[in-house]
Structures are given as C-alpha cells and as structure tokens.
C-alpha cells in the first residue's frame, strides 16, 4: 500500500479561488454534512486547545507542594472549565463531527436526513460553548462573586445552589451545557434517521460498516441520556431563580437526587464518548492489518450490549454516598458485567491483527496504543467497580487516572488516529507520516508520564480537586512527574497542529483511496464532491471496495 503516488491536484481542492468573504459565507450557511462535520471537528480542536491550556495551568500549580501560582478559586474554576470543556465542547463535537462526515459516505447517501437541522445543531453547540466561556467576562452578577463557574463539572448539589454558588457563574454553566445539548440531541436524531432510512441499495443493516453501527448505538444513548441532564439542569435553574427546592437541602431538598439525575446522564455519557473510539479503531485496525474485522456480528452485539448495560450502572459513581448493601451489590455487579462485552471487543481487535500484515502507519500506532491503554482503563474500572475498594479509591487521583485512561488513552488516541486516517478524505491531502510519528511518541510518552503515575497518587491518599497539598505526604515526586508529562502532551498536539498547517502549505495529494481501504467513502474523490457520489452505489457485502478489488474472491461469498 503506497501512501501517495498521486500527483494530480483533485478537482475539489482547486475550487479555492473564491474570495475570502465568499468562502466564509459558504461555510457559515452550509448545510452540507461534510462541511458541518469539519466545522464540528475544528471547533472541537479549538476547545481542546483551551481545555489543554487549563490542564497545563493546573499541572503547573500542582507540580510542587504548597504552590501559590494560582489562587484557590482560580484553580477550582480551571478544573470546572477543563472538565466541562473536554466532555461537552471537545468530546461531543468531535464524535458528532466524524459521525456527520462519515455516515452518509459510508452508507452511500448524499447527505444526512435533515441537513438544516444538522446546521442548526452545530450552531447551537457553538453557541453553548460561547455562553459557557462568556462566564469569564459576564458573570460578575449581583454580588460580584463569580467569573467562571467553580462547582466542578458535575455541579453537585447543594454546592451549585444559590446559597453556596452566588453570582451567575453557575447559571452560565447550566445554560451553556443546556444549549450545546440541543446540538447533540439534534445530531443524534439525524444520525439515527439517516442510518435507518438512507442506506444505498444492498446496504442491509448487517452490512453496515461497524463505524455506522456503533454511531447508531451512540445516538440512541444520546437520546436517552442527554434529556435527563437537561431536565435536571432546568430543575436547578428553578432552584436558583424560582424558589424551587429540588436540591436545596436547607429547605428539605435532596442532594443525592441531583447525583442520581446527573449520573443517569453521566455514565451513558462515558460510553457516548467511548464507543466512537471503538468505531474509529474498528475501521482502522482491519485496514492496517489488511484483514477483514474478526467476528463482525459479535462486535455489533457487544456494542448493543454495552449500550444496554450502560444505562444500569450509573450509581457506581456514588458508592460513597451510603447506598446501602443492596444497591451497592447491584451496581458493583452490573459494572463488572460491562467488562464482558468490552472484553469481546478487545479480543476481536487482537484476532483481527492476528495473522494479518500489520502496517504501523500513524493511524495504526494510535489504535494499538489505544488497545493497550483501553485494557488498563478497563481493568482499573474493574478495580473501581469493587465497592469496598471504591470506598478507598473514589474521588482520589486513582479515579482521575482511570477516566483519563478512558477519555485520552481511549478516545483521544483514536481521535488522533481517525484524523490521520480520514484527513486525506476530507482535504485530499496526506498528513506527514514523519510528523505523525513524532506526534504519536511525544503524546504517548507524555500521556503515560502524566496519567500512569496518577494511579500512585491515588493509592497514596491524594484526593482529586485540591488546589494545593502539604509537603511530606509522599505525593511530591509523583506530581512532579505528572506535570512534566503534560508538557510532552502539549508538544505532541503542537506537532499535530503543525502537520495540519504543513499539509496545506506543502500539499501531498492523497487520491481517492490512499490506504487501499474497503468502505464506500474511499470510492469517491478526496475531498468528495458536494453530492458525494455521481451514481448511488450498490453493495453486496460489508466491504464493497474489497469486492471490487478482488472479484475472484469477493466478501459476499463468505458472509
């Protein structure tokens, strides 16, 4: 598989002669799923940089004990904004962006089912992000208390109530997330409808690329989980402005109720963010192993199983609230059950690798890193699901390590893999393989320096969300290592951004199918025309391009 032997400048890439304002107008008014997908991803990376800067400030503060770089409230705002940003303004738009871009192309459609709703969703998401960050400028409020919210990304009651969170910062948090939630929900409606109704001839459900299957499950989870968060946030607004007392403990409200509502959203949200990572890996790993995915139907079944179990495990975030024996046992065992379908996936990926011709190109490096890191994340998840051990580890740095292994080691690694893999399709240009390797190794080493060590801080008794810690707790060395890793991760991301710039300054044209891949998006030009396909394709198997390339041994004879 040669990366790029193309010398022709693709047609679509030539159409850049339009003026600056015309081009801006085209992007702002677009209803094209591909442009909206790119807008989602670009906005996600914009917020990733902001969230990353927030993380680096926190790691600078914690690099040494008793540091006074940041005031306590500054630190508390940073971790609130970092968590909120990374979940709602980075994870959500990027997964929605890839879904938007790829689902119609993969199922042989010309656009999403509701193009205007699609555009509305994106702009609502962006508005939500802007509202959240407006808090830094606009939330001084009546009492002069505030600027950015400092209640933590899960805004526990009653800390987020009017009595303990004065000013309007928390209201910006509520409204920002609430508005961006409209984007996620409309995107999910769109993806479900598109997948169910707009498949090309021959694209039966059991021939859908795994990416599309997994995004379908994700979309259902979004539809189930996000409205619960929105509802709870509206209740919190009622508490704060209309004299309601749902979560107001001073008037008999219930603090634990908020936790149930929040985590009924919050745990499915983990899978909403993680399953897209599985989706990218399930497309990339077969192509770079030169083998068909092992156990397609078991992968689909495992994804659905994860989606089902995902809605029955939320209170494992609450083992320390005093659930009582019955609920503790239920949620511990339900959580352990999640390990079964995720284990099936891990084994199927490894079985796909087994016997293949493994090409360690940049997308594949990120995916193999992902498999190993996701294994660790899963196992630390098993440890946390053991309620008695959770009484020790919950709310400690061990948990911080665990969920960063899931969301960075799992999701962000696969997102980077997906960027290297699909960037040629989106732009017609390759990303530099050399820079890609630098990016991978810097980010990989930095990630492990920062987050592998955090398991240690956790078992040494360091709670999360503390802006300072006394010396002589035995935490100093580990925190110093964690902080140093953050620098390498930042460098890795900088190399990636540089590679993006370089792809435009010194283009290396990709051609329609640079990876010799098998799904429909590679059958059209790179970037695809606005209408995607000149003629709607017709497929007979899960790998239509394999069938084309191997007419002697097509897939449909084996499925």
């Amino acid at each position, binding site marked *: 598989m040669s990366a790029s032997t193309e010398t022709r400048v693709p047609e679509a890439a030539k159409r850049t002669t339009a003026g600056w304002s015309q081009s801006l107008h085209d992007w702002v008014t677009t209803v094209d799923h591909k442009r909206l997908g790119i807008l989602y991803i670009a906005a996600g990376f914009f917020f990733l940089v902001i969230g990353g800067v927030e993380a680096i400030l926190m790691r600078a503060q914690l690099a040494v004990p008793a540091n*006074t770089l940041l005031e*306590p*409230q500054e630190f*508390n705002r940073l971790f609130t904004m970092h968590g909120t940003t990374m979940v709602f303004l980075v994870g959500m738009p990027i997964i929605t962006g890839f879904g938007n871009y790829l689902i119609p192309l993969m199922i042989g459609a010309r656009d999403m089912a509701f193009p205007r709703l699609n555009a509305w969703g994106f702009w609502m998401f962006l508005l939500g992000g802007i509202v959240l960050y407006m808090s830094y400028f606009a939330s001084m409020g009546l009492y002069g208390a505030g600027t950015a919210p*400092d209640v933590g990304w899960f805004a*526990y009651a*009653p*800390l987020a109530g009017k009595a303990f969170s004065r000013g309007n910062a928390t209201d910006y948090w509520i409204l920002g997330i609430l508005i961006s939630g409209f984007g996620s929900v409309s995107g999910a409606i769109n993806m479900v409808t598109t997948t169910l109704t707009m498949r090309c001839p021959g694209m039966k459900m059991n021939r859908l690329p795994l990416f599309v299957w997994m995004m379908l499950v994700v979309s259902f989870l979004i539809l189930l989980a996000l409205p619960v968060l929105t509802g709870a946030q509206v209740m919190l607004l009622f508490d704060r402005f209309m004299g309601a007392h749902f979560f107001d403990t*001073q008037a008999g409200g*219930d*603090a634990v109720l908020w936790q149930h509502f929040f985590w009924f959203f919050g745990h499915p949200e983990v899978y909403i963010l993680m399953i897209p990572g599985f989706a990218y890996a399930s497309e990339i790993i077969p192509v770079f192993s*030169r*083998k068909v995915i*092992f*156990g397609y139907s078991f992968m689909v079944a495992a994804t659905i199983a994860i989606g089902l179990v995902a809605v029955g495990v939320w209170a494992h975030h609450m083992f*320390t*609230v*005093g659930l*009582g024996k019955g609920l*503790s*046992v239920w949620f511990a*065992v339900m959580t*352990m*059950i999640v*390990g*079964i379908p995720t284990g*099936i996936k891990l*084994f199927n990926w*490894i*079985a796909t690798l087994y*016997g293949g*011709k*493994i*090409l360690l190109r940049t997308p594949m490096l990120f995916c193999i890193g992902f498999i*190993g890191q996701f*294994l*660790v994340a899963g*196992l630390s998840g*098993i*440890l946390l*699901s*053991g*309620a*008695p*051990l959770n*009484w*020790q580890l*919950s*709310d400690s740095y061990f948990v911080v390590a665990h969920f960063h292994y899931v969301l960075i080691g799992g999701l962000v690694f696969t997102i980077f893999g997906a960027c290297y893999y699909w960037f040629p399709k989106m732009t017609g240009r390759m990303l530099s393989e050399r820079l890609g390797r630098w990016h991978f190794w810097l980010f990989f080493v930095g990630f492990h320096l920062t987050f592998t060590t955090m398991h240690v801080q956790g078992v040494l*008794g360091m709670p*999360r969300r503390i802006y300072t810690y*006394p010396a*002589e*707790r*035995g*935490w*100093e*060395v580990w925190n110093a290592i964690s902080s140093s890793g953050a620098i390498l991760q930042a460098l890795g991301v900088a190399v990636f951004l540089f590679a993006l710039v370089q792809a435009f300054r010194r283009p290396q044209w990709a051609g329609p199918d640079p990876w010799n891949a098998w799904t429909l998006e590679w059958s059209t030009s790179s970037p695809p025309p606005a209408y995607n396909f000149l003629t709607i394709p017709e497929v007979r198997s899960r790998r239509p391009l394999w069938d084309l390339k191997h007419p002697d041994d097509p*897939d449909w004879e*084996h499925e």
Partner: protein
Amino acid sequence: MSSSRHRERRFGKRARPQARARASRAFLGLLAGQGVAQADAGGGTPSLFLPVAEPAQSILDYGTLLVLICAVIFVVVMGLLALTVVRFRASAVDDGEEPPQIYGSDQLELAWTVVPVLIVIVLGLITAGRIVALQKDTPPAGSLAVRVVGHQWWWELEYPDHGFVTANELHLPLGQVAFLELESEDVIHSFWLPQLSGKLDVIPNRTNTMWIEPQKTGMFVGQCAEYCGTQHANMLLRVFVHAPEDFERWVRDQQQEARRVAAHAEGRALFATTACVNCHTVRGLSEIGSFGPDLTHLMSRTTLAAGAAVNDEARLVDWLTDPDHIKPGARMPAMKLSDAQIARLAGYLSSLE
C-alpha cells in the same frame, strides 16, 4: 504554609529544594506515624497500603485479590497484543499479497465470552460478600460514639457520651470500635482516613454511619475527599490513636471547662465582648457560638484552620489578623482589631490548653 508565602513562594521557587528533600524522606517511609510538631510535618503518607485499622486492612486484602486477578488478565491480553503486533508486522518489502481473510470463529467468541462471565461471577460473589461484611448499620456493643459534622471547611467532632466537642483532630482508643455518625452543616463533604477506613460522604439532611477499629497507636492523616468549595484542599483531618488509658486521660482533659489564667484576663474579656463568641464556644465563658470550631481546648490541637497551619501563638496572631493569609477564602472574617488587641487575644487563646 509559611506566613510569608505570598510573595517569596510565588511560582514555587522556594518550595522546590524543600520538596525534594521531603520527597526523598517520604520515599524511605520514615514518616509513617511520626512527629506531630508541625502542621505540614508528620502523619506521613496516607497510603492505603499502610493500614492501621479495620476496615482499611480488610479493604486492602480484598483490593489485593482484585489487583492480582486484574494483573493476570493484563499480562495475558497485553502479551497477546504485543506478540501479535511483533509477529505479524508487515515486512519492509511489500509483496502486494493480502493475507488470508478470516471472518471469525464462533468457538473463539464463545471462549472469550464464557471465561469473562466466570470471572465476573467469582468477582461479584466475593464483592457482595465483602460489601455485606464491611457495612455495619447499627453500633456494635461497647463502641465509642462520635458525631462528625462537616463544615466549609473544617470538621466538628462531638463525643456525645462524654459531653464535649472538638475539631479537626479525631482521638480514638486502640482496639475499640468507634461508630461515627456523619452529618453536614452545609454542602457535601467526604470523610476519608485512608489508613483507617474507606471514605464516606457527609451529606446535608442525611446521617451516614461508618466504623473504625484502630489496631495501631500513632497519628494518621486524611482529608475531605468530596469537592466542597474554595478551601476543599485545606479541610484536613488528623486522627490520634491512643492506648486506652491515654485516651481516657485525653477525654478527662477535654471534659474540663476552659482554663482561666489571670494573666490573660484582658484577652478573655476581649474575646467575650467581641464577635468571637458569636461563632466560637469556649466552655465556661460563652457557649452560644456554633458556627466555628469549639475553642475550649484549642491548644490541645496541633493545627489551626483544619490543618492549614501549625497551631502556635505566632500563627494565631497571623490568623486573627488576616485569615485569608493562611487560608484564602476561609469563613473566618478578619476582625479588624488593633495589633495590641490581637496580641492580647492570641495570648488568651494560647492559654486554652
């Protein structure tokens, strides 16, 4: 935190060499249970690998079993992954041939479904057993009752059977089960002493209960584990485990009313006539204040402001002058007293042994 930390220690310049020296000592494990002279000295690492009480010991035993099982899974799967990637890496020379396409295997799928199911059944049964064994809903016979009330950002500790209240430093007798009732005055906190017990949230409008059976004397540290606002980081906890006769002596001392020292009569009068008494109780002087910590035996405690500073007269002066200097955002207001008044007040407070 030193009183001069604001300017000199910006960007942690001065903290670094000390930090390094301390870190190496901590590494050697020399600090466990030693030294109580300084706020930021002693107590050592609150590692959950160094349990000194039940249920921390049982939790560690259970956790070790879990870790071992997970370690075996890790080695097997990571080994498979590594071997596969090394063994099947494409050779540098591409022959253009695709490898054999293998679409799946029902037997293999069955195997890697059934084995995890069995592991989950075993883990689930063990976990259920441990959950039931380690939670006690009612106080065991002969246990010591302690009521813990979380405040922003300090701990109120009441010994209802002995009739006194203290703060931030929990004293327990060796070998006797302590049964703790956890309540909150404001937001959610979490009570965590890693070497003695797992954590349990301290939730307004609820009473949670936990138990501790200390098995070793000494001083051990912990802190609030649920984010509770600005000074969550400085809501530290200390527990002193005494031999039973030492504990009895400590209880008798705490039960006394506050000392009256003639030399501090002026400071005492100042305390009684300013806003101090609105928040703080000193038994024998004024018992109306309940918003701040009980100061009856203030000097029997090693730290100020829930562990933010060493408890001595110099720090008391600093604290009374500007609480934000020691603990930015603390609920204690600066009382705007003159230096002379503060000196008298600090003198009186430091007589409250």
